């Protein structure tokens, strides 16, 4: 059975890296053509599709007309179907990416392959959310979101696994510079994970990802009483505790569940401080943000030092999937805070209902200085 695969390329992605521009979000208009000419993302997409075609799955590629996919596929000689007429403007924008992703979804494609970076992932998350699985071909400058494969070849193989039914999808956090200029979780995508189990080969572990998060949540909630005021930090792992408590967490903000059962979503720092100061038994569930291991200061600035101190270190549960923490070497969690935090030191990190690890929590600035030495 042929699977319909949407292909989306951010034509200027990756160009910013060489200019130390930290991405192409603010690429000067004058350099747009230069970026398109470099065709970095198009090249990476071609590598991924070549890798996929070698494994020989049955797929039909669908791309929107022009620089957001069809042009690059045509140049690489990859057979595909094209949607619609060329965009009116030559220079593509965020809005074009969002529009293209929505058109592919409307066209009924079953999985989307895109080449870009965190910015592109953010746009796609805004466009389609978790309505179809998305594979990121790493082609940007910043790629902290969980949707990216390790290499274009890996993305191609993962696509093959999806088409062969050897993959299942899980929520993936999209990280980027969000509103207000801080970076953190800005959206969610559905990302496939493959289950390859050849003898002696790396396998996807059971009980990882979302099921581990559910296990942690069940254990935490089961060992608490009705007097607890829950503070749920951003991210899917912490969010699972919200689900266990019976509400849908914002995932991007900090939510509070009062002993009365009252839920407050996405609270700000001032209110949070009032809440935890007044609470008899506050408990904070704190996830680890992204591939760099930030615990505070990335999309959760609401959890200020005074909020943390008011809750108390012993009432803070750091949660993360084993996958996420084992990718961190050295095993360090970072704090980006202005004032010294009581969280600094070795802290237990729950990775499952019956298992945990321990990681060193450090001030990111101090860590940077020690790395400089």
């Amino acid at each position, binding site marked *: 059975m042929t699977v319909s695969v949407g292909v989306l390329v951010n034509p200027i992605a990756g160009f910013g890296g060489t200019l130390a521009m930290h991405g192409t979000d603010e690429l000067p208009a004058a350099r747009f053509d230069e970026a398109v000419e470099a065709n970095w993302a198009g090249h990476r997409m071609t590598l991924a599709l070549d890798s996929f075609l070698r494994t020989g799955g049955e797929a039909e590629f669908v791309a929107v007309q022009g620089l957001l996919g069809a042009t690059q596929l045509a140049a690489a000689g990859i057979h595909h179907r094209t949607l619609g007429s060329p965009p009116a403007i030559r220079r593509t924008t965020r809005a074009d990416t969002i529009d293209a992703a929505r058109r592919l979804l409307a066209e009924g494609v079953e999985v989307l392959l895109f080449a870009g970076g965190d910015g592109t992932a953010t746009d796609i998350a805004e466009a389609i959310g978790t309505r179809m699985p998305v594979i990121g071909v790493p082609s940007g400058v910043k790629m902290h979101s969980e949707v990216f494969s390790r290499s274009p070849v890996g993305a191609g193989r993962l696509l093959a*696994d999806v088409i062969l039914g050897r993959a299942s999808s899980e929520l993936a956090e999209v990280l980027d510079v969000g509103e207000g200029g801080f970076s953190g979780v800005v959206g969610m995508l559905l990302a496939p994970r493959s289950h390859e189990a*050849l003898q002696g080969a790396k396998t996807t572990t059971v009980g990882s990802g979302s099921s581990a998060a559910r296990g942690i949540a069940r254990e935490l909630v089961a060992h608490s009483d009705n007097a607890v005021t829950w503070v749920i930090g951003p991210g899917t792992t912490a969010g699972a505790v919200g689900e266990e408590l019976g509400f849908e967490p914002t995932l991007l903000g900090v939510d509070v569940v009062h002993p009365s059962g009252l839920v407050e979503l996405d609270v700000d720092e001032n209110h949070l401080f009032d809440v935890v100061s007044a609470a008899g038994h506050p408990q904070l569930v704190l996830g680890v943000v992204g591939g760099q291991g930030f615990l505070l200061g990335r999309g959760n600035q609401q959890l200020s030092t005074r909020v943390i101190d008011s809750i108390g270190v012993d009432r803070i549960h750091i949660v993360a999937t084993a996958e996420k923490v084992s990718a961190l070497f050295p095993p360090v969690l970072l704090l980006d805070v202005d004032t010294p935090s009581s969280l600094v030191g070795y*802290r237990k990190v729950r990775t499952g209902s019956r298992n945990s690890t321990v990681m060193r929590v450090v001030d990111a600035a101090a860590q940077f200085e020690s790395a400089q030495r």
Partner: protein
Amino acid sequence: MSTIRRYHAAAWDEAIVFELGAPGRRGVVPPASWAPPSTEPSFAPGLRRESPPALPELAEYEVRRHYTHLAQQTLGMMGVSLFGTCTMKHNPTVNEQVGARHEIAEVHPRQDPSTYQGVLGIVHSFEAELCNLSGMSAFSFQPGGGADAAYLHAVITRAYHASRGELAQRTQVVTTAQAHPCNPAAAVSAGFEVITLPIEEGGYPSVAALKAVIGPKTAALMLNNPDDMGIYNPHITEFIDAVHDVGGLAFYDNANFNGVMTRLRARELGFDACMFMLHKTFGAPKGGNGPSVGAYGCSEELARFLPGPRVVKNGEAYELVEPDGSVGRVREFLGNVPQVIKAYSWTRAMGTEGLRTAADISVLANNYMEKRLMAIRGVSMSLPGKALPRLEMTRYSLEEYRVETGLTGGDVQNRMTDFGIDAFWMSHEPWIVPEPFTPEAGEMWSKEDLDEWIDVLEHVLEEGRRDPELVRTSPHNQAVAQIDGSGLNDPETWAVTWAAYRRKHAQV
């Protein structure tokens, strides 16, 4: 680069045993009963089988030929296999022959101990030798492998804390990310929670991390040292002291004993218990995955919890006893006795000096390999520059090569088998470096064998640069081509028996 061997595995295109033979053929015919024919019904109504079991029907020579073909389609250790973490050893034939003697092979474990004193005496002597090598006071050979010995430790930990009235409180076992997966798994199976210490910058977990998580809930520490990267945690005694200070037990998974034989004794480091794998370190064959023995050693204090039966010497006689605080059994009877006898024989053949030489060679040969491997483009090592020189293993990575060519360690591994080099071990979970591979030179293989292994790796990496498809689609010279594993985890397609296969894949 030296010449690469021209190799091809036997490829018989051998059918499944159910496809062979024909109705009515006989392999081995059992004797008829000597009892006079009975007229009574043998069993209660309805208990008899209505139709014969759907087994194959082959003449004896067909069975012999079939399984000989299967043996020929198995590489085993007949090429060069540097399967790290498994310590490939010479398995002397004389031990197989001695083990097949009736005084061992035909002994029923419920015979009176007085009738097989020779066997029990050897088991006892070997226990004494392992006590000598580890400093422990007693050993049990009942565990059926290293993982089972880890389980026995978790079981003895339960009994120890229960005997002190502290079990309900002591629910946590601490291990490390580089400990074999069986350690945390066995601990959880015995009812404990697991706390895993990560590997830090120096290549091993820190004492500070340990101290952050131990306390009145701590039941035991379970770890290896050196680990599978050949890294020795120099603070191990502080680990043990810290765990003892909070009332926990310390277990030494001696899976990586080969490089430290005759240099380190578990008990003197402070461990309460340890484990040796007789099918790895002590020269007994692995048999594909056992019969194996995880010899579990412990202190005098823990010896009373050991499972029975234990061999003890009373005057001139060897007797079987149940220790007074015994945990009972982790498995029936005395253990895989023939493997114990093979290990004893191997140890006597080696002598103390031989064991020391074996450790010397295994560490020296690993460092030799490291010199050569690190000169190969695309190969890097875990934690470069740290914890040098490595002991009997080094963990490498093909990540640079993968980035360059898109080929994975699995691809390279498959292609190496095309030259008679068996699979390397990648890494136990979790993977600390991407695309890992872990060769272990050991003391058996010659310098020429190690060179051949490295030459083949280098050759395959070059092939992959020239012609990635050749490597990706390998093996090409093996008994069968690359498996299509896509259906292995799908209940609609997996088939672990022929009957399931026939049912699910009826068209074939």
